[in-house]
């Protein structure tokens, strides 16, 4: 096994592109090391991206926020501007694992691990976040929901690295929220989850809405119909009923050790309702 710590994204891409055996990218390592220790993967090359300039920074730009691929989730929680603009994304990132894990893990790693139960991903999808991908043929920017293609699989080609996640600048009266269901209070993995992102008009009616569900299908789901049903409403009882119904219907869950199909359908709807209520309040308070 070879471990390298390149100083530029070009070097990292180059090493990955020419790697012969299995290769892995290391940021926080909270998924990679566990998988290596469990004997699930034995990479021949590990590319540590933490020394690459800019990858450990959160930058506020004219367009919004750029979160480097090596920024630990705990650092997101310490960034006041980001927390103010995207509280749902930050709270999702700060639910992963334990406090110790949050000091290492990254939202980019969470996205690339491609677990349907990843906590930060439904929040990022609801937020319409984008991923900046660096590869042998240059850079491209894609929607985060285009990254995972199935459990443990991504659309990234050989040699490609996500170098940053982009979040838009927030208009007035905007709010997001993320909720997950776990049987314990912490240190657990989502049985099902929901992220909701709303903007309101001057009268308090919902202008735009995005709803995403986690652990409800092989990949995180963007439920467009659920967003549409919210638009124009002030989150009345009837709208919330319809929201729950659409979310339950959109799920394609499985029966497994963490929950049943019926449970996931029902709770996906409940969490979407509750997350929408929190996002609506946050949007109204701004």
């Amino acid at each position, binding site marked *: 096994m070879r471990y390298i710590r390149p100083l530029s994204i070009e070097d990292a891409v180059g090493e990955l592109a020419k790697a012969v055996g299995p290769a892995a990218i290391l940021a926080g390592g909270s998924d990679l090391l566990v998988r290596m220790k469990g*004997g699930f993967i034995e990479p021949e090359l590990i590319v540590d991206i933490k020394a690459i300039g800019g990858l450990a920074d959160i930058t506020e730009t004219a367009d919004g926020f750029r979160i480097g691929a090596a920024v630990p989730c705990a650092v997101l929680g310490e960034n006041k501007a980001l927390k103010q603009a995207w509280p749902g994304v930050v709270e999702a990132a700060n639910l992963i694992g334990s406090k110790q894990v949050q000091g290492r893990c990254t939202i980019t790693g969470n996205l690339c691990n491609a677990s349907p139960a990843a906590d930060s991903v439904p929040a990022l999808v609801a937020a319409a976040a984008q991923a900046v991908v660096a590869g042998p043929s240059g850079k491209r920017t894609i929607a985060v929901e285009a990254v995972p293609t199935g459990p443990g699989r991504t659309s990234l080609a050989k040699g490609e690295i996500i170098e940053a996640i982009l979040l838009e600048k927030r208009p007035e009266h905007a709010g997001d929220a993320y909720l997950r269901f776990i*049987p314990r*209070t912490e240190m657990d993995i989502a049985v099902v989850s929901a992220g909701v992102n709303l903007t309101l008009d001057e009268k308090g009616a919902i202008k735009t809405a995005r709803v995403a569900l986690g652990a409800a299908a092989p990949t995180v789901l963007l439920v467009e119909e659920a967003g549409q049903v919210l638009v124009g409403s002030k989150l009345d009882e009837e709208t919330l009923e319809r929201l729950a119904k659409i979310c339950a219907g959109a799920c394609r869950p499985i029966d497994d*050790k963490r929950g*049943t199909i019926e449970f996931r359908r029902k*709770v996906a709807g409940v969490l979407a309702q509750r997350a929408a209520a929190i996002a609506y309040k946050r949007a109204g308070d701004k």
Partner: protein
Amino acid sequence: MNFDPRYSGRNFSSVGTRPIRPDGVDKVTGRARYGADFNMAGQLVGRVLRSPHAHAIIKKIDTSKAEKLAGVKAVITAKDLPDLTDGDAAMYDILDNSMARKKALYDGHAVAAVAAIDARIARQALKLIEVDYEVLPHVTDVDEAAQHHAPLINDQVFTEGLEEKPAKPSNVTKRTQFGHGDVHKGFAEADFVVERSFKTEQTHQGYIEPHACVASVNPDGTAELWVCTQGHFVYRQHCAQLLGLEASKLRVTSSEIGGGFGGKTHVWAEPVALALSRKAGRPVKLVMTRDEVFRASGPTSATSIDVRIGARKDGTITAAEATLRYSCGPYAGSWAEIGAMTAFACYRLENVKTVGYEVLVNRPKTAAYRAPSAPMAAFAVESSIDELAKELGMDAVDFRIKNAAQEGTRASYGPVYGPIGIGPTLEAVKKHPHMKAPLKANQGRGMACGFWFNFGGQTCTDLNIGMDGTVSLAVGTVDVGGSRASLSLVAAEELGIDYGNVKAIVADTSSLGYNDMTDGSRGTFSSSMATISAARNAIKILKDRAAQMWDIPVEDVTWEKGHAIAKGEKYGNLSPLSLKDIAAKSGTTGGPIAGHSELVADGAGVSFATHICDIEVDPETGATRVIRYTVVQDAGKAVHPTYVEGQYQGGAAQGIGWALNEEYIYGKDGRLQNAGFLDYRIPVCSDLPMIDTQILEIPNPNHPYGVRGVGETSIVPPLAAIANAVSNAVGVRMTHIPMSPPRILAALEAEREG
């Protein structure tokens, strides 16, 4: 030995205080040495190859490629552990469980092992071992396994305990029955009858420290084993027998222990490590991964229990009956039998009958787990008792008080009780402010009782007095819950010296006579009895030495508050001699001063507890939160109250995990789906409220200080107390443990749909 173990009321000066534990500093600074913290020069790394199949014939194992890998020093299979059990069926099962001989009987069953110079090579070697399996049909569910058409796990099993030997083999190894009176007559007299069936899933003890040992077998036939265990003397006996060693030549040292809860009363990896070391000619360290701990060690039974209880309008129980089916893993056990004995032990019953069935399944061999078998039986019985109280329109506590066992009651499992604590714990609960605290919406309160036998057993202790007047106490019961502190308090109490002048250790198997293991809540009960006996023997010598120093007859010397005193006015000019004074002169008065004790600690008093629990349920998701929990339990006499409280809280915490989320989940392929702490959900700190405790002290007449074991009873009531609380919160009777959110939500939806 003329030791009188009977209780005599006395005032205590050390016992009942709360000093810091002698092993505390080492533990919080990381110096304490646990199973994996021991190393020997030249030691190899041992790893075990395990069956991926729930049930399969092992047709052939080819180890030749693994043996050729550079760095591999030994590869073993069952052939390297020949059968020396000489018709001892229980020992044969232990041997077969340590290394499968003909069939792999569960996912995780050991089939081969390697010792190599490092972990990487050991892992590579495992991949080079080729096992040819013939996969057989399997069964993992206790009810399915008991059916006559179920896949047979052992075709030599014909149910014992039936009037006639059955014609066909089955997975039911034994039927047992307990009770007295006539239940038919009793039910005929009942105005109300509750009848229900319950299920509980299999749980693991969940000790944080995995099994770990270092074994070193020498060419001269001597061997050493350093191991994390609850009973190093028992491990020595078992390992010596399985490997054909002489017991006295196998020296076993117990490490600090990061939890056992009954799961470290059984050998798994230790015979394998010794066999590897014997073959390799070098020490071998074997440490289980968490995955191995779940798949191959530990768990308790999964159960299926039917209960029927009848009562008259006035609240008198007229008859009680239970049928209990417990899974044993693939080897015979007596788990349902214990469940059948404990099920109705809290009550005074004229007509009672319990029947237990031991059921083989393709799961790991069932091991003891804290009051083994009692929590599941209590869940079924105490849920039914609550339901019956509701039908009668009686308060759940009053109904139990009316029917509680008392001194002189003939227990449902046979014996007649002496002074016992069930009534007092119920009265204490009735008066407890917790019972009157207001509840909010979606919250429910439940309570339940529990019983455990407790155990005494063989015990051997040495107490040595140094020339500086300090005392070293060597005991043979492993300290799993603070017993070194408690036993030091007892030595200090009996000798009349300061706690700080006593240092207790757990001695190895070559330094003391045989001790039974720390199980059955016996550690402090039995070793305190032996410590009192050893201290009294030392006092005899101390008095003798004082008499020599004074040159008076020893009959004129008494021992009070740590001093020899010359009795009578004629000795008025002789100042008392302290233990320290006598010890300082010991070199010239006859040599070292010591007290020894060996005894069988009979008369471990039975133990009772009553718990109260408040739960909040989210009706939309089935999520639960324990918002308040109170334990009331009889300790006989709390030697170190902080550790008694710790035992009460620990049992409740484990019971909460079991009741709400912990369970072994098997796939259709018979493989364990959740062999790790992520998906086997023991509670984390934030899942639990502060667990309140109340210690009652109803002295055990068979112990000089009145001590009873306290370690196990606290896990007996929680399943039922929590089930009663959930049922009261949501208005639906929960009959399947764990009450995980999907199960609660499904029960609520079913109720809503009518």
